[in-house]
């Protein structure tokens, strides 16, 4: 009895330590399959890596790999900035589209079930190998089935038109990318739509009722209630869309990094390229969190 008291903990506190047993697998996995390779990758990026029969050797080379990646590799900069640009344009487009689609799907209407089944189909299908193969398939060609490749022309025309209107360049770029990649953006929006829909349904109806009693219009209702309460979902979706692009089949940069590693330029250079990629992602995520943290509303 006295021994028990000497711990100075309540029963609940003591029980809480059982939590470590549950998270133990993750702690082990984090150390061995994340932190260790994470540190190794820092070391690799400043080393020359020579693989032997039963091990590998590392020779310190300083920042040479980064130099190679940025200034020697003929295509890296182009692919790298292309990918970053694509991400900066795609993520807002996905966000806007999926928010719009979630509002379309929310509420009661005829055929709601079917619409939802179709809208979430990309969650299942739009990944991996099939998307890649479709790109080169004859049956998807313009001449053959009137496919969406034709949107390239539409995009050029739209750009000329918007330039005439003297709109801000950023806005034009965003809109043109959206039009050119309509099908891509729709197919990448499956998961974000689900998250937004979950968010919309979690808004309690009494808030809207109060709004109606106060005599607010639908427009005001949207900006006063819906939009602020959806900000956590927006942050989640920004993060999800960025994470999703890491393993997307159309990520040219990732493919380039992979070919660099296994196709001659060396592991070190490839890891240095990954680090440059991660640094940009980290800056973007930090900005997103910094900008949104003060503007994110949580109920309760």
């Amino acid at each position, binding site marked *: 009895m006295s021994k028990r008291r000497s711990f100075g903990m309540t029963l609940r506190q003591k029980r809480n330590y059982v939590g470590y047993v549950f998270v133990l697998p993750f702690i082990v996995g984090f150390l061995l399959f994340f932190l260790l390779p994470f540190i190794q990758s820092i070391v690799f990026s400043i080393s020359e890596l020579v693989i032997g029969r039963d091990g590998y050797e590392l020779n310190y080379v300083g920042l040479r790999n980064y130099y190679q990646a940025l200034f020697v590799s003929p295509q890296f900069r182009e692919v790298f900035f292309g990918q970053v640009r694509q991400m900066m344009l795609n993520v807002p487009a996905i966000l806007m589209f999926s928010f719009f689609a979630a509002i379309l799907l929310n509420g009661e209407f005829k055929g709601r079930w079917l619409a939802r089944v179709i809208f979430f189909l990309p969650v299942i299908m739009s990944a991996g190998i099939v998307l890649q193969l479709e790109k080169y398939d004859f049956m*998807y060609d313009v001449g053959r089935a009137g496919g969406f490749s034709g949107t390239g022309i539409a995009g050029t025309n739209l750009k000329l038109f918007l330039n005439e209107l003297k709109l801000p360049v950023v806005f034009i770029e965003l809109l043109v990318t959206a039009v050119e990649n309509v*099908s891509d953006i729709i197919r990448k929006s499956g998961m974000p739509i689900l998250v937004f829909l979950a968010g919309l349904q979690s808004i309690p109806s009494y808030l809207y009722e109060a709004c109606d009693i106060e005599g607010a219009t639908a427009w005001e209702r949207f900006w006063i209630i819906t939009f602020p309460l959806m900000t956590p979902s927006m942050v989640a979706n920004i993060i999800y869309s960025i994470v999703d692009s*890491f*393993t997307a089949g159309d990520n040219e940069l990732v493919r380039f990094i992979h070919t660099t590693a296994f196709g001659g330029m060396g592991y070190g250079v490839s890891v240095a390229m*990954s680090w440059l990629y991660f640094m940009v*992602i980290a800056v973007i995520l930090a900005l997103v969190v910094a900008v949104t943290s003060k503007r994110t509303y949580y109920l309760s």
Partner: protein
Amino acid sequence: MRLTYTLATKHKVKTVTVSVFRHAMIIAISFVILYPLMVKIPSAFMTEADAIDRLVRWIPTKLTLDNFKVAFQLMNYPKTFTNSLVLALTVSILQTISCMLIGYGLGRFEFPGGNLIMGLVLFTLVVPPQLINIPMYLNFRFFDIFGLLPKTINLLGTHWPFILTAITGTGLRNGFFIYIMRQCFKGMPQELEDAAYVDGAGPFTTFWRVMLPGAGNSLLIVFLFSFVWQWNDIFLSTLYLGGSLEYLPFALQDISQILYEGRREFLVTFQYASLLNNAGMLMFIAPLLIIYAVLQRYFIESIERTGITGF
């Protein structure tokens, strides 16, 4: 009287407009989403003559199963399908179990460092897997349990890299699954847990008998995502399995390359290549479509209730 009449009419006009707009948008978007399937399905059943005939666009004049038969043989379907299915099932079952346990630990216990661990879980999610894939590749190539074995073993080409990362919740996007499970367990009422403890149940009995039965929906979601992502995965499979043709995605990629580049004994028109390619793609996504058709109700209903509304 007149006022109420106009108000009612105005309201009706508004609802009709909204409804028309909503349905028009939904149909347009659905078309874009279904377009790839609308191309694949007729193409897979088309004869070569129809594919070459530019007048035939959507509906084949003659249906044939030959494309499937040829693609079936070229992909070595029974073998590659089984291999991929075994791998995807192993990974998804292990990931579901491990993420369930980790999520329970993070969602129901308040221990020092708990928030830090949750932060680390999210950190593993936002770091591109490319960053650690070369060290992972080498660690599995020269695996010695981190210095414990006298001689290194090569785990590449086996399922072990997948299994080891799956049981420790560090596989592809497992941070996301852990997060879903944590939100699910966190949302369960405290009274339920307290009642179990009062009745003399230990933490593990409480988990097994009281908390787990209520987590079915989230478990299903995690299992589905895990299975689908593993089935579609080419990133990790390329790394750990070296793109082995024994697995379905690579067999599919291979037939497409053989046909279009006219390698080996296959020198075919690109129209015919496309038909076989489409039949192959349909055979690849068929299991996913079947699972989705069976489980879509649970899938859509329950993801709305998993509480993934924000980080």
